[in-house]
């Protein structure tokens, strides 16, 4: 039982990270029906910006005196940086193609992904970059259960970000404008919504969340590498599809399911560590077979972004 609970926590941590990345896919798809293949690179860029900021802070001696402040600041600045990067990418690679066929935009996204990944490799090198994991170490023990401080941080930060996003989309005027643009760009423009700006904002928010995931992955696992965006990107995309692409709550649920299935398959199925990704995708196929729109996908458009 203890081991089962331990694996649950492992699964929740991983799933929360997938969920954060999946949100970017789903929000962008919701608003302009584009699968943004460059999204995984925002996650990788976030990991790198975070480690660069932290190294600079350590050089100033700030990480010694105020570790928590430094981490919070690094997280915030990284999210802002990646949000701006995503807006730039949207401006350069997607906006000029707004009225082209969907295939052109998709190819542009693939090209952007290759461009960003190689840009990271050329500027940051091919070696892994180590995170200052000593800033957060230690375990909390509940009965026989061990949870690392980092896992608690990931779970709580993810929860805060998810709740914040929900509030933004469903409780604010900006959120209302996003939902309106998702439903009908022409009509929302007629009532005075600047759809270009709303689309850019959607990219920015998605990339900000992915960047947060990047920095937390760096802290949790200890290092980042230029090509780290690819595999989690694909899994998060699967999570978004599983939850019903275009649906925000669906992306969160999908992320958690993929994370859980992966960990449980590795833990309890003979030879499962080797095929854990296979099990995650089997679940995806099974769900799509019976519910082609995903778990929460539906055509009632007001929950879509």
């Amino acid at each position, binding site marked *: 039982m203890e081991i089962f609970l331990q694996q649950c926590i492992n699964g929740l941590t991983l799933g929360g990270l997938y969920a954060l990345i999946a949100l970017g896919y789903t929000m962008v798809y919701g608003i302009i029906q584009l699968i943004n293949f460059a999204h995984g690179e925002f996650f990788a860029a976030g990991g790198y910006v975070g480690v660069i900021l932290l190294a600079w802070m350590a050089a100033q001696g700030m990480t010694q005196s105020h570790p928590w402040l430094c981490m919070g600041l690094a997280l915030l600045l990284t999210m802002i940086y990646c949000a701006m990067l995503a807006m730039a990418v949207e401006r350069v690679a997607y906006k000029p193609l707004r009225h082209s066929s969907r295939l052109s935009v998709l190819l542009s996204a693939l090209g952007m992904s290759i461009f960003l990944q190689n840009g990271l490799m050329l500027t940051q090198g091919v070696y892994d970059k180590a995170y200052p994991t000593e800033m957060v170490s230690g375990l909390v023990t509940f009965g026989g259960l061990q949870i690392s401080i980092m896992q608690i941080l990931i779970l709580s930060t993810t929860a805060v970000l998810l709740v914040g996003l929900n509030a933004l989309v469903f409780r604010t005027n900006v959120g209302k404008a996003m939902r309106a643009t998702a439903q009908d760009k022409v009509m929302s423009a007629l009532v005075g919504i600047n759809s270009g700006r709303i689309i850019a904002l959607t990219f920015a928010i998605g990339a900000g969340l992915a960047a947060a995931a990047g920095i937390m992955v760096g802290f949790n*696992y200890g290092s980042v590498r230029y090509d780290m965006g690819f595999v989690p990107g694909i899994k998060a995309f699967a999570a978004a599809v599983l939850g019903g692409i275009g649906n925000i709550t669906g992306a969160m649920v999908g992320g958690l399911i993929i994370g859980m299935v992966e960990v449980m398959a590795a*833990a309890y199925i003979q030879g499962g560590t080797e095929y854990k*990704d296979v099990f995650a995708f089997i679940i995806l196929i099974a769900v799509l077979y019976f519910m082609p729109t995903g778990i929460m996908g539906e055509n009632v458009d007001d929950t879509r972004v």
Partner: protein
Amino acid sequence: MNRNMWRVLMLALALCLAATGPALGAKLKIGSLSPLTGPYAADGNDIANGVRAAIAAIEKEGGIPGFDGIELMAEDSACDPKQAVAAANKLVSAKVAGVVGAYCSSATIPASEVLAEEDIPMLTPASTNEKVTERGLKYMFRVCGRDDDQSVAAVTFLTGHLKAKTLYVVDDKTTYSQGLADNVEKLAAAKGIKVIAHDHVNQGDKDFSAVLTKIKSANPDALYMSLQNSASGALMLIQARRMGITAAVIGQDAVYHPQLMEIAKEAAEGAYLTFGFIDENTEAYKKFASAYAAFGKPGAYSGYAYDSAYVLLSAIKAAKSTDPAKVKAEIMKMDIQGASKKIKFMANGDSGSNYIIRMVKGGQFVNFWDPATGKTY
């Protein structure tokens, strides 16, 4: 002519200029094959840099008579058989005098067959799979050790020093890492060690929490960690120690890289690795260290790559020719202390293994235990 045509023309012109860039002197051309991109790029760049350091060292000693300098073609094999063959073909058409590489055995083997057709000598600094030198190729040499010897060293250490009763084996499914792990599992079982399980993870995984939770509850005496990449090894160590796994961890030569300590920091302390014995007090090592200083800290294979290139270039120098038969004759005559080990080639192209157990201590790799004598250093 419209603007687009102009652009195309200008681009074509720029490409022509770029292509004719290098000066047309009688330079000696040698090649290197290693993964310069992809997950093994760290080791791959170490290899290319090791070759560059050897070229610098040879040129400092007066270069090779009859040639106006030495030119390196550093090709990317990407640890991929197809790309390695394409890169080998490129080296063949450039008429290189010899090749140092590749890294992954699964890339070295097909590339060596392309080079063998043209009788181009190939010296591998890192491919430890047995098959590399067991195909009867005339111009295939191996400067590193062999996997069958490496697994014996690991198991001798398990029984002889750790007195382990139970073992957990994890690998990441490459020709190399799984082959080694299978050997260790078999040998350990034959020596009466109970192998609790042999799990496989995927290359490039970052999250090992599921398999480590299983290991923690199995509580083995030792964990054999056969991963293809030092960064993955570091991630596994961090997560294992964070979970409170106290088993002795034994890795192999692919995990052996300064990155291991840079990433894992104190979590790497006390980890054991099988690696060739390197005597850092020899003249050859000091010469290598000073030539390599320009490229940063030496990686696992930097020294082997340096030795491979050094052997090749010295043989060309001694033969006063790039004729493969004469170069081979000189290589076989060699009996020298290299930066990484004593080099004397056998008929099949192997140069012997000298695996010992090294340990991470104070953020450094230190010699720990010698399986030949059963003694700690």
